[in-house]
């Protein structure tokens, strides 16, 4: 509890005020520290940003909780004490999800009625929002990080700002690799909820029991191992957006619980009879055909109606005329910069092959192809030889020579992306066999950096 010190304000408010509720509602991370820079309170926004709960952080030195670069190199609280003024600086922090986040830290003292320092208040602003806006300004034919100039994408670009300004639930559908996550984040970042948290839950990534506790939270003692209260993702996303990706994989029992929440906006953590009101916007995404799942009894019809208030269907790359070239150039520039390569572009034949390829894995596949090509090219231009060999696989060529089928979500075409994975996996295994398991030599044969090979080995689970 923080007591007000200013005499005028104190006269206005005669009672001691519990400021914790107000601090929790502020869309900035806030840490209240004592004189020894130990954490006395963390607001909800900071808990969501850092992944550290107040129970864990209570009276621990703030540098172990905030873990910002400023804490290590030039502690703003100490600087403020020396210079006798509030301090604001841009730096970065690492949260419990091991993400490095750009932040702005501002520190001010908390004074008692005698004007002596009783503690400090530190605010943490997440600068990712601002960085996204900067990127938005600098790229033509784009919305946030989404790029495209085809008619279908232009329509989406026109719709997105309107949807962002509304507060309705949004359902994003589209094949794998079409950019559903990017769209969800773009809607959040351009909405009025942008200063609030954007919390993503992958409904297909966790088993049912863990998922329920992760989404809705639990009460201490609700089950074996529940040693402390857990707020749950919904509570952490209060005043922000919650993104439920792979909603088609959400178990039926949790679909009922989600539906109840959508009706009354009240969350009941596991083991708790006391519910609390949460103000979040829901964005859901799936590559599955939910209507078909409803017919098969795997997805609740009423939940579909609730989520399907506004729907965005992201077209597969093969239907986005003109965008392949734009994306090839975009990723080419991005990877040549990243890998510090002095390449001029694609040769005519390589470009022709890339422009006529089917891209079953959509933008993700295109991005991987460009990454591979930029990595392996040693000359000035990316030649046909520098493209992944599977692009010239007879199976791939035969498949492309067939007339194009109407786009279907969850169609067997998606499964054909396995070809890309299996061929790349085989290439890695061959290289490793050839070099008797020496990864650095295998990386050289493949024309990749060691870290790229390591990433691919992890991706294809070759090491296990």
């Amino acid at each position, binding site marked *: 509890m923080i007591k007000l010190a200013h005499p005028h304000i104190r006269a206005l408010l005669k009672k001691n005020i519990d400021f914790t509720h107000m601090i929790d509602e502020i869309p900035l991370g806030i840490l209240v520290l*004592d*004189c*020894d820079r*130990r954490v*006395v309170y963390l607001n909800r926004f900071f808990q969501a940003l850092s992944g550290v709960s107040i129970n*864990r952080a*209570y*009276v*621990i*030195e703030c*540098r*172990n909780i905030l*873990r910002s*670069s400023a*804490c*290590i*190199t030039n502690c703003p609280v100490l600087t403020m004490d020396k210079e006798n003024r509030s301090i604001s600086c841009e730096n970065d*922090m*690492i949260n*419990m*999800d*091991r*993400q*490095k986040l750009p932040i702005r830290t501002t520190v001010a003292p908390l004074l008692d009625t005698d004007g002596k320092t009783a503690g400090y208040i530190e605010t943490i602003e997440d600068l990712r929002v601002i960085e996204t806006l900067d990127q938005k300004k600098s790229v033509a034919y784009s919305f946030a990080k989404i790029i495209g100039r085809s008619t279908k994408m232009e329509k989406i670009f026109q719709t997105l700002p309107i949807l962002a300004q509304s507060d309705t639930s949004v359902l994003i559908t589209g094949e794998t690799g079409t950019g559903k996550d990017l769209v969800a984040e773009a809607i959040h970042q351009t909405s009025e909820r942008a200063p609030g948290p954007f919390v993503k839950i992958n409904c297909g990534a966790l088993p049912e029991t863990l998922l329920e506790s992760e989404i809705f939270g639990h009460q201490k003692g609700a089950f074996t191992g529940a040693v402390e209260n857990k707020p749950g993702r919904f509570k952490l996303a209060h005043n922000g957006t919650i993104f439920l990706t792979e909603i088609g994989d959400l178990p039926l029992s949790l679909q009922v619980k989600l539906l109840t929440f959508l009706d009354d906006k009240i969350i009941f953590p596991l083991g708790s009879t006391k519910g609390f009101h949460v103000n979040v916007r829901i964005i859901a995404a799936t590559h599955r055909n939910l209507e078909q799942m409803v017919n098969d009894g795997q997805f609740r019809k009423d939940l579909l109606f609730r989520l399907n208030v506004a729907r965005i269907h992201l077209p597969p790359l093969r239907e986005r005329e003109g965008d392949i070239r734009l994306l090839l150039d975009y990723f080419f520039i991005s990877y040549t910069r990243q890998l510090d390569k002095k390449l001029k572009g694609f040769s005519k034949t390589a470009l022709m092959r890339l422009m006529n390829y089917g891209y079953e894995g959509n933008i993700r596949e295109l991005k991987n192809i460009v990454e591979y090509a930029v990595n392996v090219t040693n000359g000035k231009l990316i030649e046909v030889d520098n493209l992944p060999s599977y692009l010239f696989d007879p199976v791939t060529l035969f498949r492309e020579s067939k007339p194009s089928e109407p786009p279907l979500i969850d169609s067997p075409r998606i499964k054909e992306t396995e070809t890309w994975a299996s061929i790349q996996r085989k290439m890695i295994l061959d290289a490793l066999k050839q070099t008797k398991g020496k990864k650095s030599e295998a990386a050289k044969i493949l024309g990749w950096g060691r*870290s790229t090979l*390591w990433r691919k*080995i*992890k991706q294809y689970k070759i*090491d296990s």
Partner: protein
Amino acid sequence: MIDKITITIHQDQIAPRFDLTTEILIILISSNLVVEEKKSIVLPRSSADDLCHLLISENINTLICGAMEDEYYQFLKWKQINIFDSVMGSWATAFKNWQENTLNPGDIFSDRMIEGKLV
């Protein structure tokens, strides 16, 4: 088997950030958990890349550290290094817990104090 442990330190505490560490401890442990050798290295500058390189070239098999970016975590995991990250507080206590096989990532070994008194 001999274990080689690195702890990223700042004075008597575990350094809060792996990438900003400027001092490390390397401890050599024999199979019966006896400390054979202990040396501290002051790094010329803080760099996560250089530190990863050092850990690999020194054949370290356990790392105890503070906050760490996922990129470096995954890389060192791939290099078969056991990592206890997000550990806070006294490195000596963290090391003792490791010896007793009770150390977990995210453990806190800081004193919880308010106005100079333990809570």
